[in-house]
């Protein structure tokens, strides 16, 4: 199964990249855009075909490597492409 993992800084954690991008957005004339936060998107194929098993496996992977759960949260999205 193909999955997409979104890794984002937890709400309330300072997103320096997001601020920089927000300033850039304002600079090019989109001044009404606010609260920009930048995350990561990781796509992977896992061997499990059963969705629940696949989600469990990917969540384990997120806890162990893909996300630093002190400062980040993750979301697992199935993408069947």
């Amino acid at each position, binding site marked *: 199964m193909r999955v997409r993992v979104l890794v984002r800084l937890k709400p309330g*954690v*300072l997103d*320096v*990249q997001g*601020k*920089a991008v927000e300033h850039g957005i304002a600079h090019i004339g989109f001044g009404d855009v606010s609260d920009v936060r930048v995350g990561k998107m990781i796509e992977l194929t896992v061997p499990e075909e059963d969705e629940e098993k696949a989600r469990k496996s990917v969540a384990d992977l997120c806890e*162990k*490597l*893909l996300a*630093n759960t*002190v*400062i980040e949260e993750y979301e697992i999205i199935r993408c069947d492409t």
Partner: protein
Amino acid sequence: MKISIIVFPGTNCEHDIEHTYGTLLKQDVKCVWHRDSDIGNPDIVIVPGGFSYGDYLRPGALARISPIMDEVKSFAGKGGPVLGICNGFQILCEVGLLPGALLQNRTRRFLSRFMTIEVEQTDTPFTSNYKKGDLITCPVAHFDGNYFADEDAISRLDDAGQVVFRYRDAVLASAEGNPNGSVSKIAGVCNQQRNVVGLMPHPERVVQDIVGSGISVSALGVFQSSLQQGAA
């Protein structure tokens, strides 16, 4: 004493540690490649600075899962002294040997300058030669030095005396005194057992007069302190 310095692909500060412990302090020091399964029965383990794995995914994220870190965790679990400097601090936070995490600097700039840190705890293997309140000036060189932990965690760190170093910059105004934005100006912490210490600045870069050690209380004390212990 025997010192093992852990080296990952992208680590670049191991030679300054080798020079400090080996040449200046005349100890038995060796670099241990991350793929080795054996840290060499040391008395002290150092996780040095640099850009291990290019900071890919997150600084220290890939180093954290390298098998050598199991050895480091085991050594620390038995009370062995471990010091993480800069990327080493990031790695020790990632692997869970130290609390918190390092975010990108608040100023969105790579910081490369001298900073002053105050010693707040003298009962760790790396600060026992100092007095509380000693100010050490040494270089920082980092993009992700903004120490973060949530409010509860910070309270616990303060209550337990786990904040070992705090930024103090007498030269500049308070905002610039903490340019990376670290919560509570935390520059370095220790674990609950007080044998693992991490800090963002580089004391190993100012251990001799010729590179400016004379500008403050000597940074060499960080390493000299560690030699005061009995064998781990």
